[in-house]
């Protein structure tokens, strides 16, 4: 029997540390173009001089300052979520160790706040590492290259996530109308708290854990993309349309810009369960990513 060659042999090289550190820096200090465009467009809808207009103006200035000075957009640099796709044979352990080192260094440099607290003792680890921090999601795929994406999700918006079990006496049954009502309730409840205008990642179905997880992964989509399912695409747009008529506005100050986008994914469910999981993301929608080619060099930046 002949030994089969490894499927892929992407080697991590010393540059990987610097690359991941740069990923963290970019994610913490620069918003992706699709997010900046959406915020810029939203300001035109608000009455000049209103509290909402002033809020969006400050947000715009903040985006510029953070990028120019290479400093965190928001002091809450959030949960550190890595999403990695790699071919079989790629050393995931080494990537995780390298990323942990990069996170420690980024905390020292000030791209990340000291954000990892022992839930029993209350002690801050001081370097953002510890049980469950950072978070890694590894997936194998049949592509030849590696893809690393990073999302920083602040605690203010994370606290506004919500999960509904349908049927629900206030929101409706196990259909898309029930789903829509549940999502709109989440928007109502999140007002002011989650640093709107917000972006929703939603999952219909799954169990309580996978539903939340899948809803968060919807935040990897770009704001200007379209759902491949035409029914869900319509639902995504309807939710944004309705939410922006509620008068909640940026920061909950009142106004027309409550949501910048909604992205909906679907998982199968048990016959007994019907969960709608909503991950609320603040306007400081920090995500970035890169690909690594088979020579271990950066292929491209993803957002």
């Amino acid at each position, binding site marked *: 029997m002949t030994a089969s060659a490894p499927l892929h042999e992407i080697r991590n090289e010393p540059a990987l540390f610097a690359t991941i550190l740069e990923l963290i820096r970019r994610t913490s200090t620069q918003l992706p173009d699709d997010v900046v465009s959406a915020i810029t467009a939203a300001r035109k809808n608000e009455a000049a001089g209103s*509290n909402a207009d002033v809020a969006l103006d*400050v947000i715009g200035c903040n985006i510029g300052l953070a990028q120019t000075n290479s400093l965190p*957009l928001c*002091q809450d640099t959030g949960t550190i979520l890595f999403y990695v796709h790699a071919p079989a044979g790629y050393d995931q352990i080494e990537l995780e160790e390298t990323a942990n080192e990069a996170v420690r260094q980024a905390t020292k440099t000030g791209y990340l*706040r000291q954000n990892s607290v022992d839930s029993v003792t209350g002690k801050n680890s001081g370097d953002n590492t510890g049980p469950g921090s950072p978070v890694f999601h590894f997936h194998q795929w049949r592509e030849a290259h590696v893809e690393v994406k990073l999302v920083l999700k602040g605690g203010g918006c994370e606290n506004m996530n919500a999960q509904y079990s349908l049927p629900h006496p206030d929101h409706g049954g196990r259909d898309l109308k029930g789903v829509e009502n549940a999502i709109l309730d989440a928007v*109502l409840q999140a007002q002011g708290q989650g*640093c709107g205008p917000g972006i929703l990642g939603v999952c219909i179905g799954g169990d309580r854990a996978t539903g939340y997880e899948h809803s968060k992964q919807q935040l990897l989509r770009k704001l200007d993309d379209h759902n491949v399912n035409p029914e869900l695409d319509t639902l995504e747009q309807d939710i944004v349309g309705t939410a922006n008529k509620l008068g909640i506005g940026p920061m909950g100050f009142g106004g027309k810009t409550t949501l910048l986008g909604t992205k909906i994914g679907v998982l199968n469910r048990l016959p007994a369960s019907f969960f709608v999981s909503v991950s609320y993301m603040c306007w400081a929608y920090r995500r970035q990513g890169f690909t690594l080619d088979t020579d271990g060099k950066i292929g491209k930046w993803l957002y």
Partner: protein
Amino acid sequence: MTKLSFPFTEEKIRSLKVGDEVLITGTLFTGRDAVHKYLHEGGKLPAGVNLKDGILYHCGPVVIKDERGNWKCTAAGPTTSIREEPYQWQVIRDFGLRGVIGKGGMGDKTLQACKEHGCVYIHAIGGAAQVLAQCIKRVRNVHMMEQFGAPEAIWEFEVEDFPAVVTMDSHGGSLHKEVFAASQAELAKYV
């Protein structure tokens, strides 16, 4: 735009109304989850921290030491205030606060304490950590760093023209209550 400068007298604070945009100049102390729980449970303020006629900022900043060993605040937006709702009324009453800066607004207990004791809730723009850090001209001191960790410590900031909006005043007005009621009524048309 109203300039609000130290000392934050009751008269100045009582003159503020919901919707007023303010630029704050003076000393701010930060305090968030750990500090509120600590004070609520009878903890003493450390020497050097005086909240009388002062403004407390719900903020967990990014602060680093520069090459000369001085603190430098590099990001300092507000954190969500509602978590302090069980404690805030008491901190306003017992320590003589005239203002609380945060985001998202607070509830009835805090609103009542603002009315009784002459205090306002001032909303900074959430996430605007750079704009707000630029208003911090000096980090004067830090307290309880060892006990609570950097984000939860009491930082003493000297700020200049720190922009924010009054969303709960000392006359029972709350923008948060207004917007919630109106948006809830509007949503009822669609569901």
